């Protein structure tokens, strides 16, 4: 038993600190993938026990029972029952409970016991329970439940040492799984189990005379009908300020770094290697560099989302927004996925898994790509800084910032409108889905856990930049460089390339909305990721105008485009389905191409019509 890797699975209700326990057991030795055939995230990791046993850990989706109401909960049920194809039955289940809040978990423990597999109960956050004056008779509880019990403090260094020790002890002796007695519980079963759990709690847990009032005091402000909304608005404001201002120095550093690297390559390459030099400098370094520059923003937005989640605020935000979002046909739980979509629609769409009603989930998925994701920021920033003067209005409002705000507002407004329309036309006959959510006690965020979360996201982003985006940049460089201009040809070399041919072919379609062929060329690789369009424009114009132009894309654009064209492109980017990865995720999450096609077509139609109106209106107003 000591040779093969042992399989451990973490099971537990939401908000029990299961994920931070997982993080503290495995550290950065984690792998995030999907379960085969479904879109539920499979989080696994590994560690070595003090006695040298190597253990793999599976962090199963949180659940209140094994009934399997959502795809996530079905995964947990099937793995626990050993019914899941391609996933071995865990050797040992660790049922994680929040020591300060045992009611719901103990009922789950009683249900899990019926499955008959080796199991251990982990009372997590025991430090908070002790501080609050909760005392638990562990021996008695272990007797009552017939299970070994360990305590842990997932957030503290060494807080899982007892768990590791007991795991070793547990694994040292053989354990036979009993036959499963589990059947889908009826209401009567659930009630009986809850009564039994309450009886055990009454017998072994002594609650403090004074209950925790801190959460209550915070909530009386944070969930206040008026102040609650004010606080939510302030939090969102600070978050977006942070994304735009705190990230700035780091972004400039990265941007300068890549420029210097490109210049270095340019300088050290021997004469006559023009093509390879152009590939490295214009295709590779400036292309990938222009995307990696956004890493600071991605880190900051995920830092905020994970902090708020860990603190316990996200559930409160859903509570505050439920009725307001309900007006647009959205569920309160859609707030978190939509908020994440401001960073990137992909995690946002994946986060819609918390919505268990299919219609609510589909509506949220449909509109998530309309939220202004961070990949649009480079496009917006480039065009705004080139065309909108940095004047100050009314003494304190920056005009460029105002336009940026307008673009965000347009995205949100159109998302809510689309949702309301979808509700009216697609699911008119359906009553709204229920909203039932535990509001966990506030907790100090676990910094290590958050660091691991941010690190995982940053890694995913860099991986994307290193693969999809890199290959698209190579492709666009190739299209823009070949075939090469014939000797003695007049005009810029790019005019003879494939890119020009494609751009010219698309131009008649895009002329009514004010786009020239260079924009048409940039839109094609922009399908890989929106931000690539900036790099592609840079490539197209820099190859055309030499390296000075690449340094000053903005200035070049200001000379070559009319204001009407610039505005039209901005509006296009609010709506256009310019992201192949998002479409791929929609297809995966909805289990078919239908909703992907619906999303693509409705966004394309919106983009074309809106850009057409903008361009023609701007021309009529004489904005050149």
């Amino acid at each position, binding site marked *: 038993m000591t040779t093969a890797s042992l399989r451990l699975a973490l099971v537990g209700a939401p908000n029990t600190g299961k994920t931070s326990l997982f993080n503290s057991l495995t550290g950065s030795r984690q792998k995030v993938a999907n379960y085969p055939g479904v879109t539920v995230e499979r989080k696994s990791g590994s560690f070595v026990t003090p006695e040298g046993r190597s253990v793999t850990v599976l962090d199963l989706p949180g659940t209140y029972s094994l009934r399997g109401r959502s795809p996530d909960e079905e995964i947990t049920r099937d793995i626990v029952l050993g019914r899941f194809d391609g996933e071995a039955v865990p050797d040992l289940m660790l049922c994680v409970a929040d020591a300060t*809040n045992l009611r719901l978990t103990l009922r789950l423990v009683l249900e899990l016991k019926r499955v008959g597999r080796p199991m251990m109960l982990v009372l997590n956050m025991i430090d908070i329970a002790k501080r609050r004056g909760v005392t638990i008779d562990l021996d008695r509880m272990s007797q009552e439940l017939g299970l070994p019990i360990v305590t842990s403090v997932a957030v503290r260094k060494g807080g899982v040492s007892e768990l590791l020790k007991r795991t070793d002890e547990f694994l040292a002796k053989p354990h036979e799984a009993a036959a499963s007695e589990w059947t889908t519980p009826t*209401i009567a079963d*659930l*009630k009986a189990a809850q009564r039994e759990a309450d009886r055990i709690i009454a017998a072994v847990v002594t609650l403090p005379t004074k*209950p925790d009032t801190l*959460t209550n005091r915070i909530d009386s402000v944070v969930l206040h*009908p008026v102040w609650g909304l004010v606080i939510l608005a302030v939090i969102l404001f600070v978050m977006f300020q942070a994304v735009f201002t705190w990230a700035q120095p780091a972004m400039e550093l990265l941007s300068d770094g890549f420029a210097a690297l490109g210049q270095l390559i340019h300088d050290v390459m021997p004469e006559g290697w023009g093509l390879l030099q152009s590939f490295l400098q214009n295709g590779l370094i400036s292309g990938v560099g222009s995307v990696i520059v956004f890493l600071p923003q991605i880190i900051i937005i995920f830092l905020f989302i994970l902090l708020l989640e860990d603190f316990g605020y996200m559930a409160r935000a859903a509570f505050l927004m439920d009725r307001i979002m309900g007006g647009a046909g959205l569920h309160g739980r859609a707030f978190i996925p939509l908020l994440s979509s401001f960073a990137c629609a992909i995690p946002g769409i994946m986060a819609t898994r918390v919505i268990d009603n299919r219609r609510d989930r589909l509506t949220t998925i449909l509109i998530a790509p309309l939220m202004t994701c961070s990949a649009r920021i480079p496009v917006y920033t480039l065009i705004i800084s080139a065309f909108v003067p940095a004047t100050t209005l009314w003494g304190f409002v920056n005009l460029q910032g105002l336009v940026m705000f307008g673009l965000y507002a347009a995205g949100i407004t159109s998302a809510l409108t689309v949702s309301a329309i979808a509700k009216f036309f697609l699911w008119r006959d359906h*009553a709204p889905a*229920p909203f039932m959510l535990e509001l966990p006690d506030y907790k100090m965020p676990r910094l290590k856990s958050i660091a691991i979360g941010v690190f995982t996201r940053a890694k995913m982003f860099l991986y994307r930049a290193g693969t999809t985006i890199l290959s698209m940049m190579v492709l666009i460089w190739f299209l823009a460089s070949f075939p090469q201009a014939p000797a003695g040809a007049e005009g810029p070399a790019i005019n003879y390339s494939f890119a020009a041919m494609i751009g010219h072919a698309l131009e008649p379609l895009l002329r009514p909305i004010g786009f020239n062929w260079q924009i048409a060329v940039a839109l094609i690789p922009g399908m890989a990721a929106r931000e690539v369009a900036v790099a592609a424009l840079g490539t197209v114009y820099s190859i055309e105008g030499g390296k000075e132009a690449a340094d000053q894309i903005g200035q070049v654009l200001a000379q070559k485009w009319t204001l009407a064209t610039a505005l039209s492109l901005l509006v296009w980017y609010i709506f256009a389905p310019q992201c192949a990865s998002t479409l791929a995720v929609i297809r995966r999450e909805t289990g078919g191409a239908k909703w992907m096609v619906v999303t693509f077509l409705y966004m394309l139609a919106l983009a074309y019509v809106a850009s057409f109106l903008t361009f023609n209106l701007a021309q009529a107003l004489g904005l050149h």
Partner: protein
Amino acid sequence: MTGDPDTSQDNLQDIRLGHADRGFVGKIIRLDALVTGSSLSPQELEQRLVEMGFVEGARVEILHEGTIRRDPIAVRVDNITIALRRSEAMAVIVE
């Protein structure tokens, strides 16, 4: 459906949690999910409420209310807090 069930009650002191105001403190007598404004079937609604700890005898207190039409509500059920809409809370009979 606005979630206003038949108010014929077997006991005059029994009320539905969905009708109660902020600050209400009481005890759950039983669940009755037959007539609510919820889109869930009575059986499913009852199961979910039980899973969230709404069982007979539990102490409930309405801690907070939403901004629009005082909905949803945050309910303390023994020692946990659950947010739910008033239409679902109609299934909880309290005294």
